[in-house]
């Protein structure tokens, strides 16, 4: 290990396979003073509920929370676009002193009159938890007056981690579930959970299910509609993607409505196919579904296979570092990168749990570094040490990768092209190829391969041409 210091308290959240006994500590609250890449409870709730396009999303708090989450996530809608507007009670000092309930009441009433939404979600922010507004009571009152569901989301930022925000969002959604009629829903039907239609991914997945002969009752929450959520309890199976976000809802639906759920990932050929097969296997009393599924998988893979092979030849042996929100995504990414012949040298997540990290350890090769809730220094340290060629992460990681002169692929909400499904795998491969083999990295001054803390923290002396990275080496 090099001399870039790691906080002592952080040591238990970093593991290098093959060097130590495995004892990861995760689900820890981030250390005060660390430059963590994580966010808050509100953020968790907001990302889960945001794609429901015909609902009103009102953020009760000072302006920031609404401003920073205004249309930053490309969750596409095929109809209404109400979710892309930013609504805030914009609390002022006097509201903080005298309470914001009145303001919330008026804001809600006005908005419902103007936009006639199908339902309204009211997000509580930090300050609301402190000044003690009775958001629940206001919601009830407005709900009665306007005759629509007004659902409080208990997402005060400090009350836990992003995961608790997922839970708060699921609690709010669960209040809608069971309200609609389940008439006419096929006995071969599912809900898609944890798919947010970034870049239109939900549409790709839905199309596979349609072709299999499986009805999708609701997608939660990508391109989501309130009425679909209301009748989602009529589905026979819940298919849950994204480990952290919506398992809570699946659990609640299982308990109350007896709907079983399976966990899937739509990313990479292996996991994508497994998802479809698992759903088909659930409907074993109708073997046509499995037949059809096999056909779809064959057809889709043969369609993209030749091009994937070409890309594979070009990126084989390159090294990748992964740092994503949920651990489940990391599993799929590792498999997909392996399929392309690449090595994963670093794998980490913001919100993984014990089982997740055990799975990660089992999947990874010796020497792979596994991190929970990493900071930029740690990430850059391992990128240098492990000589990564590619970094897969989110918005805050992108410029770090670029500054270091390596390729980057956004597997978070800033991706522009769909990466799910078979066509998504090809998109992903193309993106990886494009960035890893880009000639622009030749412009980069030599990447420092040996580092110590002083250099990294303070000084930089370019060493022209000595270790110029070219893609042929």
């Amino acid at each position, binding site marked *: 290990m090099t001399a870039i210091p790691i906080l002592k308290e952080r040591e238990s959240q970093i593991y290098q396979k093959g060097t130590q006994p495995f004892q990861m500590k995760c689900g820890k609250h981030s250390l005060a003073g660390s430059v963590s890449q994580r966010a808050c409870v509100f953020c968790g709730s907001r990302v889960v509920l945001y794609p429901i396009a015909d609902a009103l999303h009102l953020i009760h708090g000072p302006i920031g929370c609404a401003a*920073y989450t205004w249309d930053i996530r490309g969750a596409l809608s095929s109809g209404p676009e109400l979710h892309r507007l930013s609504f*805030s009670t914009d609390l002022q000092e006097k509201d903080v002193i005298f309470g914001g309930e009145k303001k919330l009441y008026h804001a809600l009433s*006005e908005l419902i009159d103007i936009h006639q939404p199908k339902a309204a979600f009211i997000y509580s922010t930090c300050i609301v938890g402190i000044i003690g507004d009775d958001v629940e009571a206001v919601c009830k009152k407005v709900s009665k007056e306007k005759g629509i569901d007004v659902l409080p989301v208990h997402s005060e930022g*400090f009350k*836990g981690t992003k995961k608790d925000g997922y839970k708060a969002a699921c609690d709010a959604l669960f209040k809608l579930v069971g309200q609609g009629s389940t008439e006419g829903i096929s006995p071969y039907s599912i809900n898609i959970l944890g798919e947010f239609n970034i870049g239109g991914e939900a549409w790709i997945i839905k199309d596979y299910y349609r072709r299999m002969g499986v009805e999708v009752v609701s997608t939660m929450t990508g391109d989501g509609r309130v009425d679909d959520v209301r009748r989602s309890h009529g589905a026979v199976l819940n298919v849950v993607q994204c480990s952290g976000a919506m398992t809570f809802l699946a659990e609640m639906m299982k308990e109350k409505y007896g709907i079983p759920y399976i966990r899937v990932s739509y990313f990479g050929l292996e996991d994508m196919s497994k998802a479809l097969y698992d759903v088909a296997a659930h409907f074993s009393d109708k073997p046509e579904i499995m037949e059809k599924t096999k056909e779809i998988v064959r057809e889709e893979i043969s369609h993209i296979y030749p091009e994937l092979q070409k890309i594979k030849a070009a990126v084989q042996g390159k090294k990748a570092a992964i740092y994503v929100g949920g651990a489940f995504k990391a599993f799929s990414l590792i498999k997909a990168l392996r399929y392309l012949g690449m090595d994963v040298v670093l794998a980490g997540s913001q919100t993984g749990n014990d089982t997740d990290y055990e799975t990660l350890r089992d999947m990874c090769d010796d020497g792979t570094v596994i991190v929970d809730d990493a900071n930029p*220094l740690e990430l850059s340290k391992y990128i240098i040490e492990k000589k990564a060629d590619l970094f897969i992460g989110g918005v805050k990681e992108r410029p770090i990768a670029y*500054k*270091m002169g390596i390729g980057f692929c956004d597997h978070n909400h800033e991706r522009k092209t769909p990466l799910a499904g078979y066509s998504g795998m090809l998109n992903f491969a193309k993106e990886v190829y494009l960035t890893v083999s880009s000639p622009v990295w030749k412009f980069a001054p030599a990447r*420092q391969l040996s580092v110590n803390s002083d250099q*990294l923290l303070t000084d930089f002396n370019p060493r022209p041409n000595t270790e110029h990275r070219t893609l042929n080496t």
Partner: protein
Amino acid sequence: MLLKHTTSEIKERSALTVNPAKTCQPIGAMYASLGIHGCLPHSHGSQGCYAYHRSALTRHYKEPVMAATSAFTEGASVFGGQANLLQAIDNMFTVYNPDIIAVHTTCLSETIGDDIPQIVKKAEADGKIPEGKYVIHANTPSYVGSHVTGFSNMCKSMVDYFSESNGHKSKTINLIPGYVEPSDMEEIRRIASEMKLKTIMFPDTSGVLNGPMTGRFKMYPDGGVTIDQLKQTGSGMGTVAMGRLASMAAARALDNKCKVPCEIIDLPIGLHGTDAFIDTLRHIAGVNVPDSLTFERGQMVDIISDMHQYFYGKRVGLVGDPDQLLALTKFLVSLDMHPVYIVTGTPAGKKYEKALREVVKDVPGEVKISVPGDMYLFHQWIKQEPVDLLIGNSYVKYIAKDDDIPYVRYGFPILDRVGHSYFPTVGYKGGMRLLEKILDALLDRQDRDATDINMELVM
């Protein structure tokens, strides 16, 4: 139609902001802090705040943005954030080794009433602040003002903590550039150095948020005002503060604390704005304007004269931050353009609105101004009577697309283009760039809409 939910009928809204034209104080404080060399901004609040600020600044600058957080928990919000901040200070100096930590508060820590100076004193007493290192703070409650207020508060803190008079006046002029881009700060410095002046500018984010690609990740880039320089501001011969909302508080504080006289002027945007800036420098330092700047000015006037017929009478809608809007509106009026809708989300006050009204008093027809307003209202005005040109941040592109109006990106945030961090819009050079952008937008539209018969080569 992305904004199909915008109605043209305007209903009075009593308690609601839709599509904000502002954001909250802490991000402004974080941006200002990044303009100190070797500084790690610290957000005393929940983890989400700083994650959002870092993301927003990262998207705008396409640069790594470093900051830390007190990562409030439920316990901290009940018992106060002292333990978190103490631990944070210790951790930051141990691992990230900054020269200085600039703490800003959030709505959460403000409301529970954490006393930051007292906590910092405790950290000092406990030996958590290494020799020669500093912790400063600014109170930035999110429910007061806007991001501009937060920027202003942090600038004032720099004075409160560091400025000291050494008894005699130096020949240095302090420049407070306002909440502008790194490129603008660089240009302001360049203009002063063309005049052979010795200056200290604070904050200074050039070289921090528009740095080069080096092949290495650098926690503390080369740019930023140093602590030594900040100390010397107290002995300066004068201060030029640009933009009342963003810079006046710091300039006044410096005057009160160290008796450094200050001139508060508009941002040096446009011909008159830049003239006033250069003239102010000339007066304070008693120097002549060098030929090089007169030459640049002449070039700018040349573009204006060459193309004046395209500016004439164009209706413009602007949304942005108050200091920018005031200077920009003056510039547009001087070009014979008609700024007709002006919105800022920042509650800039009656005096500000009056100043803005004064600038547009000769613009024919009704000029609608909303201080503070939001982009929903702005869009409603446009739906009622359209404009020829829109100027505003990236969110304005929805309005531009929906209502098919030429559009110049300007302000914060710009999430979908590059350039703002490298090319200034202040000074004569910046003015030329603005002219180019405005003309491009207008003339591209004319070309696009021209019939084959009317298509003109020479314009």
